[in-house]
């Protein structure tokens, strides 16, 4: 995983609330055994019509969205299924951060593990971002702030260990493996609530 410190980009704005992972990555593409190249399926039913032609009015298809790596989304983004294909597809498309007031739990976790930064901002900052698509925004992970074009900064919460992993480009598995002695000790203890 690549280390992340700063993400600076114009924003793409997708204001709808409750965008579920079936929209982000439709289920019919789930019969893949790979995690590469999944951006083809990203928002497939919104980007393309039934014949496969681009829907020019969908925000990702507009010329001004080209090269943008920050997605500003409505509340409860990523609800529904646990499919990690959703953050894989967003990352593969070039998105590096999703900003919202709330992001669904499983998607949030999955995003963190794939170098896709889930950024929760206050309602006022969110409203400003929704109203200003294409704004040049800078996310500073170390300081956990989002800087708006006028210089205002909004803080966002970031769990300490996830921040450490993202800043150093390491994954959590290394840490878990380093705790194997404690895991083995736990397995030797008699279980308190299960007879096994």
């Amino acid at each position, binding site marked *: 995983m690549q280390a992340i410190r700063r993400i600076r980009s114009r924003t793409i704005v997708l204001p709808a609330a409750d965008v579920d992972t079936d*929209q982000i990555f439709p289920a019919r593409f789930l*019969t893949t055994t790979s995690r590469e190249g999944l951006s083809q399926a990203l928002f497939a*039913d919104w980007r393309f019509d039934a014949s496969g032609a681009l829907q020019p009015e969908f925000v990702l298809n507009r010329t001004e969205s080209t090269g943008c790596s920050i997605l500003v989304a409505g509340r409860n983004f990523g609800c529904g299924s646990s499919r*990690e294909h959703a953050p894989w597809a967003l990352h593969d498309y070039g998105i590096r951060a999703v900003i919202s007031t709330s992001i669904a739990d499983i998607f949030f976790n999955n995003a963190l593990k*794939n170098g896709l930064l889930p950024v929760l901002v206050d309602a006022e900052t969110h409203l400003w971002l929704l109203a200003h698509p294409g704004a040049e925004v800078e996310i500073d992970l170390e300081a956990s702030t989002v800087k708006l074009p006028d210089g205002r900064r909004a803080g966002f919460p970031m769990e300490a260990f996830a921040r450490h992993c993202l800043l150093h480009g390491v994954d959590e598995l290394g840490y878990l493996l380093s*705790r194997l002695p404690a895991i083995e000790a736990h397995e030797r203890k008699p279980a308190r609530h299960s007879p096994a």
Partner: protein
Amino acid sequence: MFEKIWAAHEVVPESAETPAVLYVDLHLIHEVTSPQAFTRLRSRGLSVRRPDRSLATLDHATPTDTQQVFGGVPIRLESAARQIAELERNAAESGIELLGLRDERRGIVHVIGPELGVTQPGMTIVCGDSHTSTHGAFGTLAFGIGTTEVGHVLATQCLLQRKPKALAVEVRGKLSRGVGAKDLVLAIISQIGVAGGSGMIIEYRGEAIRALSMDERMTVCNMSIEAGARAGMIAPDETTFEYLRGRPRAPSGADWDRALVAWRQLPSDKGAAFDREAALDAADVEPMISYGTNPGMTIPVGGNIPMRDDEAFLKALRYMGFAPGEAIAGKAVDIVFIGSCTNSRLSDLRAAATLLRGRKVARGVRMLVVPGSQQVKRAAEAEGLHEVFTAAGAEWRESGCSMCVGINGDTAAAGRYVVSTSNRNFEGRQGQGARTLLASPVTAAAAAVTGRVTDPRELMA
């Protein structure tokens, strides 16, 4: 209860710098969210640490067409066949038990865990599937994880987790006749909202919850994720123990007695504190149906679609082909789907069959009945339920996720209306452009008979 289970599974407690290392008692695996995890494991030179604490099955992409499962006809979807073959290989190489394509114990992962008795109170259970919350019906801490975390559990049997908050949902009183667990959970979601349980674990309590059977409790816990909560739980009681007694993998003999002692200590202590509480009266719950594109958009079958004019609401109604203020009863139906980890257990099939007995599926309506597991299928056949379904004109299929997620070939065409006992009415969930109306098994059966959205109580003797 949640606190007790959490504490018993904390390998390393959380600190300001690091989340807790949480031990996983049981890891359930299926073909769709696991292949990339096994690949990643291999590329790092790691092996599966505790195959004995893992159980794999085939459900999501697996055909429900009898010819493809048992008749020697090749699996029609090549990509699905590849996923199935890959799980077969991964399970064999790592020593994980796989209940394979023609195994009589195969079925939807959240149906077979409880059915086999591997799901037990006090456990931690995870699976690369958001409906893992189902197992919480037994007083287990069970939640869905992504594929990266599937890899973590394969390699270490542990996960890194921050402790979530707890939400108590109290359901007072008794459910009325013709109203079931599905109606109740849809009512709960419409009350607290599709993000109402975000960052939380829900504990369902109260008289109406205690009165539910295990099948019904599973239906309620199953849809916790539809309220944004990763897990839902119900304290184990005599109903739980009676369900588990004698199951093939439940403890037996002296182990059973020891287990009971431990399980009886699990329920939350009197006065246990919750971060938030919500309550509703069971008597107010009516047969429910969804009219929009998320599971919070539900109304009583006899009700009218709300009058709202915000863009998201109108977009959802445009997708559904409905207008604000319209009655939902009487809307024409093309397909009825009885199945999914929400409502495919024997009691669900019995409820649907009771309404269908001696009746026919309306002309032009396709009805699929997909049992949750092969064991559910055989049990239903032993009672003759399959004859009720086939005599009515419904399809009686092999077990699997089928039209709930529509990746095994069981899909609805664009524009079609599906009354479905599944859990998600998202755009395109059951096929590109397909329109889903979530409902209980009896409401779905009533729609099959009349070809229209119908209050099932009108057809009950």
